[in-house]
C-alpha cells in the first residue's frame, strides 16, 4: 500500500509477521496491544478508560524526543492525515502531539500502575523509559484467571428478609430500674415450679386460671376443669364441659368453695369444689362466656355478644341484671373486692366501670348503665385489675395494637398514669403488699413485668417467661406467688413478691394466707 513505507520502523519491527496491514487493522492492533492477549477480548476498560487508549500506546511506544519530530502515527485519522502529505494537516497533527505531550503528566502518574511490556520494545529503550519514569521494570501485575463468583444468595430473598426483619425484631431490653427498692431485693427470673397443662387452649379471650383463697388453683384444659391443691400438690379433675364444647372461663367464689365455669356455648356452671359436683347450670347467654367474676353470691359473666349478666346463684331465676355497654366481646371482668364497682374491658377497646348495686331480683328493668366509659385503649382490653390497697385505682391494659397500661381513678374517672409496654398486655396483678403491679405480655417479649406504682418504674422484666405468649395470670392468696399460663401448655409459678415477715419458716405462708383471707373477710 501507498502508506506502507511511511510507517515508522518501530511499528514494523513490532509486527513483523503481519507486515501487510490495512490501516483499520493497524489501529485495532494499537488499541488492543496494551492488554494481555487473553484478556483483550473481554476487557472493556481499554475503551472506557481514556488513559489506556491510543494516547497511552503512543507514550509507551515512543520516547517524547522522538515524538517531537511530528512524524509519529498515533491514530487512524492521524495516519491518513500524514498520508496526504499536506503541510497544513501536518500542523494539525503536530498540535495533536502537543496535546499528547501535555497529557504526559497524567500518564506518568499512572505509569507506576502499569506493567511495561518489555517484549514489545527494545531493551535499551525500555530501560531508558524505566529510568526516566522511575518505574521498576521487574514487576508484573497478575490477576487470577477466573472472575470472582457472583453472590449465590438470592437478592429477592435477601430483600424479603430485610422487609420482615422488623417483625422478628424485639425491642431492646431497657436498663433495669435503678430505684433503691430493686437493689434491696432480688427477684428470681426462674419459675419456682412448672406444671404441665396439656391441651390448654391458646386463646387470648379466655380466662382459664383461678386461684382461690383456700390455696386451690383451678385450670381449664380444653373441655375439662382441674383443681390443683397448692398445699399438697394433689390434682383432681373437677368436671367436664358438655359434649362438643369447651370451658372458656373459670373463677373461684370469694370463699373458695365454689367454682364458676363458663363454657363455649354460653352456659354458666356452678361447681362445688369439695364434692366435685356440678350444682347448677345457668343458661341464657347466646355465645361464649369468656370471663367471670364473683361478688359474694352474684356471679357476673361477660359474654361474646358484649353483654354482662349478673347471676344470683342462690335463686332459681338466676339472671338478676344485665349490663349492656360493649359492642364487642367482653374479655375482662373484675369486681372490686367491696362489691361497689365492676370493671369490664371489651374487644371493642372500651373500659367500662359499672355501679355494683343490683336491682331487686326479678325487676324487669334492672339494667345498669356504665358509671363511666373509657375509650383510650386502641386494642382489646383483657387485663383489668383493682388495686387492693387503694380501692379507687383500676389498672387496664390493652392488646397488641395498644400495649399500654392505663391507671384510672374510678371515683373521678381520671386517667392517672399511662405506661407503654413492649407488647400486648394480657393480664395485670396488683401486689397486695407492695406498691407494685405485675403485667404479663404476649408476643414478642412473652414477658412478665413488674412496675412500681406510682412511679411506673420498671422493677423487673422476665423475658421469655413462656415459650409462647403469656395469656393468664393469677395471684396466690398469700400474694407472693403468681401463676402464669400460656399457649406452651405450661403453668409457671413465680415468686415475685414476699409476704411481709410475720413469722419465720414454714409458717410464713400459712400466716400470709390467713391474713389475706382475713382481709377479704373484713372487707366483706
Amino acid at each position: 500500500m501507498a502508506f506502507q513505507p511511511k510507517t515508522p520502523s518501530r511499528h514494523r519491527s513490532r509486527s513483523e509477521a503481519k507486515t501487510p496491514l490495512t490501516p483499520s487493522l493497524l489501529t485495532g492492533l494499537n488499541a488492543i496491544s496494551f492488554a494481555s492477549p487473553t484478556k483483550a477480548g473481554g476487557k472493556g476498560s481499554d475503551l472506557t478508560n481514556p488513559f489506556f487508549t491510543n494516547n497511552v500506546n503512543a507514550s509507551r511506544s515512543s520516547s517524547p524526543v522522538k515524538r517531537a519530530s511530528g512524524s509519529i502515527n498515533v491514530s487512524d485519522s492521524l495516519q491518513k492525515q500524514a498520508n496526504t502529505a499536506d503541510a497544513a494537516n501536518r500542523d494539525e497533527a503536530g498540535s495533536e502531539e502537543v496535546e499528547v505531550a501535555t497529557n504526559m503528566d497524567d500518564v506518568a502518574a499512572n505509569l507506576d500502575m502499569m506493567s511495561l511490556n518489555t517484549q514489545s520494545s527494545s531493551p535499551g529503550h525500555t530501560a531508558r523509559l524505566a529510568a526516566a519514569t522511575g518505574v521498576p521494570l521487574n514487576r508484573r501485575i497478575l490477576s487470577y484467571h477466573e472472575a470472582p463468583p457472583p453472590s449465590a444468595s438470592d437478592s429477592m430473598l435477601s430483600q424479603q428478609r430485610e422487609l420482615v426483619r422488623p417483625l422478628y425484631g424485639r425491642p431492646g431490653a431497657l436498663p433495669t430500674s435503678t430505684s433503691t427498692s430493686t437493689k434491696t431485693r432480688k427477684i428470681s427470673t426462674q419459675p419456682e415450679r412448672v406444671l404441665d397443662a396439656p391441651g390448654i387452649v391458646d386463646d387470648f379471650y379466655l380466662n382459664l386460671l383461678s386461684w382461690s383463697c383456700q390455696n386451690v388453683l383451678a385450670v381449664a384444659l380444653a373441655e375439662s376443669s382441674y383443681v390443683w391443691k397448692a398445699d399438697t400438690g394433689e390434682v383432681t379433675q373437677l368436671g367436664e364441659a358438655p359434649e362438643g364444647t369447651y370451658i372458656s372461663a373459670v373463677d373461684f367464689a370469694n370463699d373458695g368453695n365454689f367454682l364458676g365455669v363458663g363454657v363455649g356455648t354460653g352456659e354458666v356452671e356452678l361447681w362445688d369444689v369439695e364434692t366435685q359436683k356440678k350444682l347448677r347450670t345457668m343458661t341464657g347467654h347466646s355465645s361464649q362466656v369468656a370471663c367471670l367474676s364473683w361478688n359474694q353470691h352474684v356471679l357476673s359473666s361477660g359474654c361474646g355478644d358484649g353483654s354482662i349478666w349478673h347471676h344470683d346463684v342462690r335463686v332459681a331465676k338466676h339472671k338478676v341484671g344485665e349490663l349492656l355497654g360493649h359492642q364487642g366481646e367482653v374479655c375482662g371482668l373484675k369486681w372490686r373486692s367491696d362489691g361497689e364497682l365492676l370493671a369490664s374491658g371489651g374487644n371493642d377497646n372500651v373500659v367500662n366501670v359499672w355501679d355494683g348495686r343490683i336491682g331487686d331480683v326479678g325487676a324487669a328493668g334492672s339494667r345498669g348503665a356504665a358509671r363511666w366509659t373509657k375509650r383510650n385503649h386502641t386494642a382489646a382490653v383483657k387485663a383489668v385489675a383493682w388495686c387492693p390497697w387503694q380501692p379507687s385505682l383500676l389498672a387496664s391494659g390493652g392488646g397488641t395494637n395498644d400495649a399500654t397500661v392505663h391507671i384510672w381513678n374510678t371515683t373521678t374517672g381520671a386517667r392517672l398514669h399511662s405506661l407503654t409496654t413492649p407488647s400486648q398486655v394480657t393480664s395485670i396483678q396488683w401486689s397486695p403488699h407492695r406498691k407494685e403491679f405485675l403485667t404479663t405480655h404476649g408476643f414478642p417479649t412473652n414477658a412478665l413485668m413488674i412496675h412500681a406504682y406510682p412511679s411506673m418504674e420498671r422493677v423487673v422484666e422476665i423475658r421469655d417467661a413462656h415459650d409462647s405468649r403469656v395469656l393468664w395470670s393469677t395471684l396466690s392468696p398469700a400474694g407472693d406467688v403468681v401463676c402464669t399460663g400460656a399457649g406452651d401448655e405450661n403453668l409457671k409459678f413465680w415468686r415475685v413478691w414476699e409476704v411481709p415477715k410475720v413469722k419465720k419458716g414454714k409458717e410464713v405462708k400459712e400466716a400470709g394466707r390467713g391474713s389475706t383471707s382475713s382481709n377479704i373477710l373484713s372487707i366483706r
Partner: protein
Amino acid sequence: MCASLVVLILWLLSILFQRGVYPADDFHMVKKYGQTVLVTQDLALENYLEKILAQMNKWLLTGSVTQIVLAIISKDSRTTMERWVFDINVVQQPAIDAPAPAKPESEIQAEIRNILKQIVSTVTFLPVIDEPTVFNILAYTSESADIPANEWVDTDPLAIEAGKSQQVKLRSFSTDVHRIEAMVAYRYEG
C-alpha cells in the same frame, strides 16, 4: 500459613462486607483472634479466595509479591470504584517455611483489631456505592516470581484516573517477616 496472609484474609473479607460487594447475608460472625470476625458463607467465594490466597501464601513466603490490590469495580460500567492497595515490604529474607512470628500474640491481635476497626470506619468517608459491584484481586509480583501457568495472567492495573482519585492511607500491619502498608484510593469527582 503466613501470619500476614491471615491478616490479609480478614482485611479482604471485611472490605467485601463493608463495601457491600457481597450481601450481608453471605457473611456470618465468628469469634476468632479474640474478637468477632466475618467469615463468608458463600462456598463459591470461599473456594475462589482460597485458591487465590494459597498462591499468595507461596508468593509471600518467597517474598516475590510486592503489592496486593483489591479493586472494586462497577459491575455494569467496569470502571474501578475503589482500589485497596496493600504494599508488602519484606522486612527480612524469609526462610522457605514460615518462621513463627515472634511478636506477642496480644500485640498482633490488637493490631488486627485496629485494622478491622479502621476498615469499618472508612465507610464514613468513602462514597456510597449504589450500583452492583464486583471485585478483582491483583498481585504485583516480581518478574522472577513463580507463576502457575494458565492460572494467573497479566492484567490491566485497574487504576483510577489520577485526576479523579482520592487516596487515604490506612494502618499498617507488621509481622517479623512482612510489613504491610494499606492504602485506599477511591473515585471522587467533585
